């Protein structure tokens, strides 16, 4: 009978193979390896610690139940992240149904103030430590609307194409392109704002 220790040296592929046969210890090792990444993705989309924890836990339970469907076309981590993203998108849709759409959000969808914003010509992250860049990006992402943030995460962090994003977000490619455009413009302004604050 293998012990927990034996699994730490095994590759994901082998762990998945064992887990598919019902080996819980192998699955536990997979959870231990990827839990931070999965939680981080859930948090980046939900911006709420409790929801991110619940959703990442749900994602792992779902993964165990659907493990037989994992064919290894992508890495296990990518497959897990996709499950998490889908759960987060479902949750965001549920949350949205419970609150009225404000005029501000509707404006953001179609560009709103970003239409009038002057182009940012200087790179506001230049010369910053990587940790600081990451912190600022996360802060800026937190200031975007859910739709803008989601589309940026899916495109820039998950490398999904417009078509794939549209499918996952249940909207048209045109909407994805528009949201991505205004999300980027707003990010530029927010990052420039942080830089200005720093200089002052």
């Amino acid at each position, binding site marked *: 009978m293998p012990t927990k220790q034996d699994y730490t040296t095994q590759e994901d592929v082998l762990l998945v193979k064992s887990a598919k046969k019902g080996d*819980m210890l192998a699955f*536990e090792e997979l*959870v*231990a390896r990827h*839990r*931070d990444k*999965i*939680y*981080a993705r859930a*948090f*980046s989309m939900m911006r709420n*610690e409790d929801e991110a*924890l619940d959703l*990442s*836990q*749900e994602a*792992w*339970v779902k993964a*165990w*139940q659907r493990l037989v469907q994992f064919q290894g076309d992508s890495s296990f981590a990518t497959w897990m992240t996709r499950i998490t993203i889908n759960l987060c998108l479902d949750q965001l849709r549920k949350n949205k149904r419970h609150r009225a759409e404000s005029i501000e959000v509707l404006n953001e969808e179609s*560009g709103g103030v970003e239409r009038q914003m002057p*182009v*940012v*010509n200087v*790179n*506001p*992250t230049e010369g910053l430590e*990587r940790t600081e*860049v*990451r*912190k600022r*990006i*996360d802060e800026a992402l937190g200031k975007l609307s859910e739709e803008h943030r989601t589309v*940026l995460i899916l*495109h*820039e*962090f998950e490398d999904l*194409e*417009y078509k794939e994003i549209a499918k996952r977000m249940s909207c048209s490619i045109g909407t994805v*392109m*528009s949201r*991505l*455009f205004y999300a*980027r*413009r707003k*990010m*530029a302004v927010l*990052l420039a704002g942080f830089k200005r604050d720093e200089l002052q």
Partner: protein
Amino acid sequence: MNDETKIKLQAYLDGELSRRDARGISELLTTDNEAQSLLGELQMVKSALHGNELELKLPETREFFWSKIQREIERSVKEEPTRVPAFAWWKPAYVRYVGGMAAACALLMISFIAFNNEGPRKFVPGEIEGNGEMGSITYHSNADGMTVVYLFDREPGKVVDSEPN
């Protein structure tokens, strides 16, 4: 620059434009300063985000987080209704039905063989007697050594009983 061109500019940056549209945007960029600036800004954001996602740690210990997942998995297994494979639901009925049919066929075969061993039998009609007053019909067959009496309620068609002799 109109909105459509701006969106196309972004698609050009993301490599999602058709070859023809990409050529059009390339040409625009050689002459249009506004397009160049906008592309620069979009490019800056794209580069800034690339590989710069904040790394977070799950705020629970490995053991505690796993225990919650394990509990959920076990609970879902218990709650899951017993799934019978699609082919299995009719299996017991099928076995009973086929079994019964097979037994009947076997009996029929045995009877047939037994009858055939006695050789062909001639059909000998029996005698039928009716008694309207008594309300009975009697069938007698010497060949089978059998007498059957049907009793009825004088009204024809109402058979009351039958009794082998």
